[in-house]
């Protein structure tokens, strides 16, 4: 324990020092420009990766792979193809140019300025401020689960400790995007995961041998007994996809793979990242590191999460979820039990670093959503924006900690972190993605079409989350309170809909309504405005 505490103190010291160095070098906007151009691509690369990946991906989704198997690798495929390649190559360059043309500094501001609509900016700001704490809570829970297992203390104490470290980090200026700090965190994460995959494959006798053991494990009678509940839901082993159309298949394919894989395209911190890069060259270079980094983070977490079943079984006679005592405890317990303790400390730091860099970009998004998008722009007020922004961040931290506390009361066999993350990603995609694509690519689309599309996606998404998709509706309990069942379609002819993730319905609905709106309403934005938006594109 002493080693871990010393490591955290050293880590916080280095982060502070790098933050100080970063600010010293970027005092004026001219310095900022020059500084940005001289930064080594590797530093830039690691800093991108650090903000994308968090404890949610490693602990939450890694745990989900421990329960559901290697089908999660489809999420890695989508994360790299959509979250990196399409996002950077297709959306990134236009977003950056348009953001600078319109002096936009947040995602809601980009949409609001593009369509000359305070409503769009305010609406997007409110959605982000109200729902992002669910994602933040998922990241906090991932950190707290790891601390709980690593130090053997209660979840509540771990959460408080982690929240305190986060508060210190935010207070030290951790929200201000300092490239060196993020790069340092990214480097720790990369080293940690690289060691982990080598260690696990080596321990199980190589790549093919490890997978073969995992395939064979499922055929053992005692394993069939332990996973009987999962098998009933469509589970067919960790190296097979679940049975098509089964509850587990719907959960894996629509919630985990599609919800997060597609939802990443409309993530506010990612859009801001595009605007902060100095030129398209940096975006091109970031594609290299982004692709490799995501593979090393999520790919490794999902493979190790799945393979943990073999090691847990050999040691305890139980599958990972039973041996660890819950889906979200699989990765923390695996690290504690099977890797050398010196590496446990490094991995602990890697996770803290992953959480910190992501949390800082989340608090940045929520703070600017309430202070700039809603208060200054949508409501047109001035004067107290610093107070409003900081109070907003404080509220967001408190709300996230409360949600992370409550999340631990849910059924531990659920993929709580992964579901919370997917909920926010899916809602963002349904509300913003059609409008965001239209903003970048459809010059003559009307503001009305985008507004009705956004509202449709959001309203259907929220109704689906609270009343239809049983996995979320049952946890949120509003449906139970009002209708006395876990989903309003339960025990009806439409019961299958309770398995379908909101993104499958809300995103197409939003896209169709935006499309119909584009055909039936007239663009009222001036030519001058549109020329300004698309200058240089």
């Amino acid at each position, binding site marked *: 324990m002493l080693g871990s505490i010393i490591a955290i103190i050293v880590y916080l010291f280095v982060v502070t020092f790098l933050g100080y160095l970063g600010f010293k070098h970027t005092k004026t906007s001219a310095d900022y420009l020059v500084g940005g151009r001289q930064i080594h691509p590797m530093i830039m690369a690691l800093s991108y990766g650090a903000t994308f990946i968090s404890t949610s991906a490693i602990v939450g989704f890694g745990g989900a792979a421990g329960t559901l198997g290697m089908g999660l690798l489809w999420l*890695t495929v989508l994360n790299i*193809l959509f979250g*990196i390649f399409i996002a950077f190559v297709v959306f990134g360059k236009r977003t950056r140019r348009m953001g600078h043309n319109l*002096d936009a500094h947040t995602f809601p501001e980009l949409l609001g300025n593009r369509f000359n609509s305070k409503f769009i900016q305010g609406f997007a700001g409110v959605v982000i401020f109200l729902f992002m704490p669910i994602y933040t809570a998922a990241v906090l829970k991932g950190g707290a689960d790891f601390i709980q297992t690593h130090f053997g203390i209660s979840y509540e104490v771990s959460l408080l400790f982690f929240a305190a470290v986060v508060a210190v980090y935010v207070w030290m200026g951790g929200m201000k995007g300092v490239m060196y700090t993020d790069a340092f965190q990214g480097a720790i994460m990369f080293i940690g995961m690289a060691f982990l995959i080598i260690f696990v494959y080596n321990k199980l006798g190589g790549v093919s041998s490890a997978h073969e053991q*995992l395939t064979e494990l499922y055929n053992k009678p005692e394993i069939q007994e332990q996973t009987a509940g999962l098998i009933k839901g469509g589970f067919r082993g960790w*190296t097979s996809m679940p049975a098509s159309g089964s509850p587990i298949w719907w959960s894996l394919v629509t919630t985990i793979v599609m919800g997060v894989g597609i939802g990443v395209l409309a993530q506010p911190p990612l859009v801001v990242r595009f605007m902060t890069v100095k030129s398209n*060259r940096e975006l*091109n270079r970031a594609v*290299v590191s982004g692709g490799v980094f995501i593979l090393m983070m999520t790919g490794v977490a999902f493979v190790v999460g799945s393979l943990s079943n073999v090691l847990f079984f050999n040691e305890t006679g139980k599958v990972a979820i039973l041996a660890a005592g819950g889906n979200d405890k699989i990765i923390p317990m695996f690290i504690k039990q099977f890797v050398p303790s010196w590496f446990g400390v490094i991995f602990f730091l890697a996770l803290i670093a992953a959480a910190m860099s992501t949390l800082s970009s989340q608090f940045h998004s929520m703070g600017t959503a309430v202070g700039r998008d809603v208060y200054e722009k949508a409501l047109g007020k001035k004067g107290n924006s610093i107070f409003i922004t900081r109070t907003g961040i404080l509220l967001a931290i408190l709300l996230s900690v409360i949600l992370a506390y409550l999340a631990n009361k849910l059924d531990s066999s659920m993929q709580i972190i992964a579901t919370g993350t997917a909920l926010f990603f899916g809602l963002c995609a349904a509300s913003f993605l059609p409008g965001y694509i239209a903003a970048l690519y459809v010059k003559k689309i009307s503001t009305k079409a985008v507004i009705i599309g956004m509202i449709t996606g959001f309203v259907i998404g929220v109704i689906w989350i609270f009343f239809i998709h049983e996995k979320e509706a049952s946890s949120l309990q509003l449906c139970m309170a009002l209708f006395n069942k876990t989903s309003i379609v339960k025990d009806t002819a439409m019961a299958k809909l309770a398995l379908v993730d909101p993104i499958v319905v809300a995103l197409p609905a939003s896209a169709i309504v935006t499309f119909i709106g584009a055909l039936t309403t007239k663009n009222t934005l001036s030519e001058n405005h549109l020329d300004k938006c698309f200058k240089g594109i």
Partner: protein
Amino acid sequence: MFGIHDIWIILAYVLCILSAILCVVYGIVNWNKGADLEPNELAEESDWSKNESEIEDKL
């Protein structure tokens, strides 16, 4: 292949690596492209950065 028998899992495993390779190849081919900014872009970017610093100060 790789000790996995389900074609969909093999496909995911291979596509993960191939898509990362696609990113590496694209990035290397375009490594130095897109660096030059027009003088007006430079001025715009400078203004944008200045405003960004002001926003960060409020956080």
